[in-house]
């Protein structure tokens, strides 16, 4: 009994030591957070303050920086630079520096990323929801289903660059595509169009050709979709499993078919969870550079919908989807690794990173808040 009161105070005992080690490990997370996020904010905020809204509404441009003969410093986009030159045909330009993609703003890349996310959502959500409904509601246990689950788990662990190369090989160079021009030797099917369709599509024949979609937003979006699919399937299955078995039992016992049960008593309650969980997955892949740099993203100043050449609406749409575009992560990669690094590139780097991070943060927060709200509302 008396031993209880025998606590020896010999400075730091092992218990305290462990507590402190754990504590430091935890604090390191905050440190990393502050270092990363803090640095981005500290460096990016002044850029945004200076450029204002035009940083988001303008597309990237070539940037020219120089001192004129009066010692005045100029930062000009390509158009302004040309104007300056015509205004001062033989004006002196000292210390002139120029950098691609570093002027203007990030409107193009932003739109490109949104389009990629959109394509990715359409493909990943439809396939993901369908697969998860099958896995959790219909499939029976068996070797095939076990293999599918194993595949899903493994797919989630595949490095993003492998997805990129897969997308490059499959979507850009193999997947069948409908064309009107005589394709190369890969044509597998062709049909003569009836007159009304020919005039509608402005083409005599249609070919189905295994020539791939080329380096395009469709290929890039689908590659991203392949990458989130495992995340989405897992998240959707979890949401489905969170729907009480009682709902299914009640529905079935009232004479509903299994499909009615899923449609009316399971999916509506799982959908909010599915959506929010999937958004988080989508955000993660939409920040990836590797899968899109092989499949559809390239540095350019054009907007995704600018400079379409086809006249016919149908071919215009296909042209749009079969063209590459600039995306934010790739834009960041371009300005920070692909072009010569001078000090005039810095503002573009810092600003892009900050905007990108803010968007991701905002979307992630919204989805989490939404989930909490819906959880509260749909409590059972």
């Amino acid at each position: 009994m008396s031993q209880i009161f025998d606590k020896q105070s010999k400075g730091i005992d092992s218990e305290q030591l462990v507590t402190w080690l754990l504590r430091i490990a935890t604090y390191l997370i905050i440190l990393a957070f502050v270092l990363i996020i803090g640095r981005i904010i500290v460096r990016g905020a002044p850029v945004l303050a200076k450029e204002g809204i035009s940083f988001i509404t303008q597309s990237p441009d070539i940037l020219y920086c120089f001192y004129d003969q009066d010692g005045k410093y100029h930062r000009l986009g390509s158009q302004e630079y040309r104007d300056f030159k015509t205004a001062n045909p033989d004006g002196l330009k000292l210390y002139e520096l120029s950098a691609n993609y570093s002027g203007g703003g990030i409107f193009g890349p932003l739109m490109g990323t949104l389009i990629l996310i959109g394509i990715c959502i359409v493909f990943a959500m439809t396939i993901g929801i369908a697969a998860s409904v099958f896995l959790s509601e219909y499939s029976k246990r068996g070797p095939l289903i076990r293999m599918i689950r194993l595949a899903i788990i493994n797919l989630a662990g595949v490095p993003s660059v492998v997805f990129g190369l897969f997308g490059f090989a499959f979507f850009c160079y193999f997947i069948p595509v409908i064309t009107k021009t005589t394709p190369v030797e890969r044509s597998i099917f062709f049909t003569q169009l009836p007159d009304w369709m020919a005039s509608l599509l402005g083409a005599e024949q249609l070919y189905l050709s295994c020539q791939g979609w080329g380096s395009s937003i469709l290929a890039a979006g689908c590659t991203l979709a392949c990458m989130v699919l495992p995340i989405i399937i897992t998240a959707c299955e979890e949401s489905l499993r969170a729907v009480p078995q009682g709902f299914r039992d009640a529905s079935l016992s009232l004479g509903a078919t299994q499909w009615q049960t899923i449609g009316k008593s399971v999916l509506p309650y799982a959908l909010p969870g599915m959506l929010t969980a999937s958004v988080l997955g989508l955000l993660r892949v939409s920040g990836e550079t590797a899968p899109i740099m092989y499949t559809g993203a390239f540095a350019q100043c054009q907007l995704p919908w600018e400079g379409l050449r086809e006249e016919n609406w149908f071919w215009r749409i296909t042209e749009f989807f079969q063209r590459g575009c600039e995306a934010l992560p790739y834009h960041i990669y371009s300005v920070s690794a692909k072009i010569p690094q001078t000090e005039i590139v810095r503002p573009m780097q810092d600003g892009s990173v900050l905007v990108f991070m803010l968007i991701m943060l905002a979307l992630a927060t919204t989805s989490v808040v939404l989930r909490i709200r819906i959880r509260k509302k749909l409590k059972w």
Partner: protein
Amino acid sequence: MSKQDKKSKEPKPKATERIDTSSDGARHLNEALLDVQKLSFSYDMGKTDTLKKISLEIPKQKVTAFIGPSGCGKSTLLRCFNRMNDTIPTARITHGNVKIMGADIYGPKVDPIRLRKQVGMVFQKSNPFPKSIYENVAFGLRIAGERKKSVLDEAVEKSLKGAALWDEVKDRLGESALGLSGGQQQRLCIARTIAVEPEVILMDEPCSALDPIATAVVEELITKLREDFTVVIVTHNMQQATRVSDHTAFFYLGELIEYDTTQQLFTNPSIKQTEDYISGRFG
């Protein structure tokens, strides 16, 4: 009554006759609605039988209670009656059959969806959908394709009245069913079940999550349901069985030990195991 002669080994026929003289004579007395013949059931593809050669007849417009210790297969048998076990991939009927009004419900031509409209079920844990009270009751009709508002309104009112819930909820039909008390929720589930006008209502421990007052209300409801429906109820509460049921079946380890009128079974059980169980000596 040749069917009953075949099973004269079991102590049931005499009793059925005895009790029915007291009830109203207008209906088809003694008619067996559900007829279970030597039913064996397995959860694991027939390796072990959870139910072993169970034979019993459930009379029309009566309340039949299933009692027995936990795990003896009461719920399993109940779920055989509306083929809810179909959802378990490894579950099998290994022997015998179940007939409803003479037709085998596991026959090749039977549509389990339509069967379940005839044989409704109320679950142990009340499971209203997180929808409005109205939509909960209308659910069965809606999935059956009923769209007319007037028909739905009428059915909802009738069912809620039938479940003795109408007066409590008639002013808030549009509110979420999850706002109801436990007892009200369970009665809502009963209303939802009777809205599709089944022949049989299966109830698996419908009162086990309710307080005594709510239980009394539901019990009263069950005795009233007997006028229109055939009720099979699983209960762990012997008093409840004596209060609400006309017949009682006692199960033990997947076997039907004794089946008799409730009065007979509880006052004068013919088998030792039954006596031990109802007097609380095991189980």
